[in-house]
């Protein structure tokens, strides 16, 4: 948060001098700053100064909202995270729509803090042993696949890591709970329509009913490029996870995670 000073003075009413080229930003009405910001082209040198001024003026709002989340978070952490929401709100706000900035920004600030809390909560909830095991299991899985020339069994992985097979299988569920946090995240559809192309590849196999096709194209656009490739390789080309790992040059554990995350996200999108 460097560069952001949380001085409440910024939010106080200021005398409104006659505006002109030499008027300091601190003396300009907030409403006028929004108008200026919306008129300045991206990349204009004055734009950054106006944007920073708007962010600073609304930091007291972050302060106020952040207090709701103590003692779950320290006030300092909540403000830090909430400020990210504020910056996103300033960048996304369109004053011409006629809405109050505060009404627009508050949900974004709260949302940012809640997301942080949710992620932090995972770190607390996930059994420490499972967290520590993740790396060891992933490594053992890849090593044993190389050594044995086939996917290792749960007991073989457990033997290599020095733990119980039940602990190994629970690592899968740890991944699932950890990845839940990503489900709201949607990458922008890539240029070139890769998502519809991937959906088409599935469609061409004659699997899907007509009414599902449009939904699928839409759902596929919520996946990033690698996720779409993994879905296509597994469900259209019918490669095994090990073959996909070889093909795209990542570990089997990564393929598993990508596949599970993608399927979960497709399901949510298709049901939405």
């Amino acid at each position: 948060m460097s560069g952001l000073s949380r001085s409440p003075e910024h939010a106080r009413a200021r005398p409104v001098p006659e505006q002109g080229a030499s008027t300091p930003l601190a003396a300009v009405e907030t409403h006028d700053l929004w108008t200026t910001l919306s008129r300045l082209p991206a990349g204009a040198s004055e734009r950054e100064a106006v944007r920073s001024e708007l962010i600073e003026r609304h930091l007291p709002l972050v302060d106020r909202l952040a207090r709701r989340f103590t003692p779950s978070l320290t006030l300092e952490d909540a403000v830090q995270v909430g400020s990210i929401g504020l910056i996103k709100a300033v960048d996304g706000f369109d004053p011409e729509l006629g809405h109050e900035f505060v009404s627009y920004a508050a949900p974004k600030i709260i949302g940012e803090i809640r997301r942080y809390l949710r992620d932090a909560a995972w770190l607390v909830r996930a059994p420490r042993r499972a967290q520590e095991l993740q790396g060891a299991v992933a490594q053992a899985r890849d090593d044993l696949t190389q050594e044995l020339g086939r996917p290792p069994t749960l007991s073989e992985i457990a033997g290599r890591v020095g733990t119980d097979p039940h602990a190994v299988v629970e690592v899968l569920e740890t991944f699932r709970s950890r990845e839940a946090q990503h489900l709201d995240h949607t990458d922008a559809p890539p240029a070139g329509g890769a998502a519809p192309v991937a959906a088409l590849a599935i469609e061409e196999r004659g699997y899907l009913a007509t009414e599902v096709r449009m939904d699928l194209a839409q759902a596929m656009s919520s996946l990033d490029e690698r996720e779409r490739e993994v879905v296509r390789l597994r469900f259209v080309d019918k490669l095994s996870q090990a073959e996909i790992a070889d093909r795209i040059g990542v570990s089997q554990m990564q393929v598993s995670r990508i596949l599970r995350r993608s399927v979960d996200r497709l399901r949510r999108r298709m049901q939405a």
Partner: protein
Amino acid sequence: MSVPAPGGPASWPSDVTTLCVPAHPDFVASVRAVVRSTAVVADLAMEDVEELQIAVNEAAALLLPLAGSTRGSGLSARLEVEPGRLCVRLWITGAQPGAAVDRGSLAWMMLSTLDPELQVVEAGDERAIEVSRARSGSSGA
């Protein structure tokens, strides 16, 4: 009480586990949990466990809409285990006449990839899907 190591010689009193959960998506995780722990007994590969769990999700997604709204309706699961192999049958009862598993859906497409030999039963008011997985890399997988 000592617990024998998973994957050892099978001498179980029965090789079948059954459970019934409410016919609602919130309870599918319970079925997945049992699949996971039974997969340890079968000593499958991680890939198999992951894909069986996806298969359970997709099978449930196909069956639950057919379960009707009868209070108390359940989603049943039967897991049959042998060393290196696990078969999962999911079913609901109380399906309306003519209600069929949607074979034009994404769930069906994924399910039929995960187990090309999956079985579907549509008889009376029962609708069932059975998928099985043999340990990856073993013969007959």
